[in-house]
């Protein structure tokens, strides 16, 4: 084969492989097999299988569920599927100081184990930021600021 035609063959093969790899990543069930985290409802649907191994759980910190014990550095809260009061939620227990951005109704991903008492014990609490970047509003006091944040629907990741 002439070098030119060989090179073009190489190009076609490389492009073909690239296209199939992209197709597999985008539409294959890679997402289901290599999932980064489970939502509360996905975790609950796993039943017994979820108990034991180290897994990640992602969702939104349920409003009114945060219980912080500063003396013992212990944090209890619920991670829910969404913002609604009746959204499925999992109780989470942590012995670490959470990141500063931690609050009600913010997206979190926790890494740890789920036990048979239906509590998720996390050793790694991560807070996720939305794709919104806004300055503080003029004259907005700390309290109003917090209120306005809570009223908005944070952009949880899919």
């Amino acid at each position, binding site marked *: 084969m002439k070098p030119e035609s060989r090179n073009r063959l190489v190009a076609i093969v490389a492009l073909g492989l690239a296209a199939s790899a992209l197709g597999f990543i985008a539409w294959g069930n890679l997402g289901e097999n290599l999932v980064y985290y489970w939502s509360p409802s996905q975790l609950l649907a796993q039943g017994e299988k979820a108990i034991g191994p180290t897994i990640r759980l992602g969702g939104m910190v349920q409003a009114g569920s*945060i219980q*912080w014990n*500063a003396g013992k550095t212990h944090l209890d809260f619920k991670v829910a599927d969404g913002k609604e009061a009746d959204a499925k939620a999992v109780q989470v227990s942590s012995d670490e100081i*959470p990141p*500063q*951005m931690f*609050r009600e109704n*913010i997206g979190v991903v926790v890494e740890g184990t789920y036990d048979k008492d239906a509590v998720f014990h996390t050793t790694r609490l991560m807070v996720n930021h939305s794709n919104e970047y806004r300055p503080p509003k003029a004259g907005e006091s700390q309290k109003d600021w917090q209120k306005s*944040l809570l009223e908005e629907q944070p952009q949880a990741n899919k």
Partner: protein
Amino acid sequence: MSALSLLLAQADPSRVGVGHIQGGWEFVTASYVLTLLGIVLYATSLWVRRRKE
């Protein structure tokens, strides 16, 4: 940066649940310094390699 940044990166225990970051300038400084350092080092490496030709 370690002890200080660790302290600043995490919430003041009395303020858990507040939901916004205070301070953290050392992370910003580190990022900008690293960017500048990268530019200087990479430009130097290009200069050195060019002189060899």
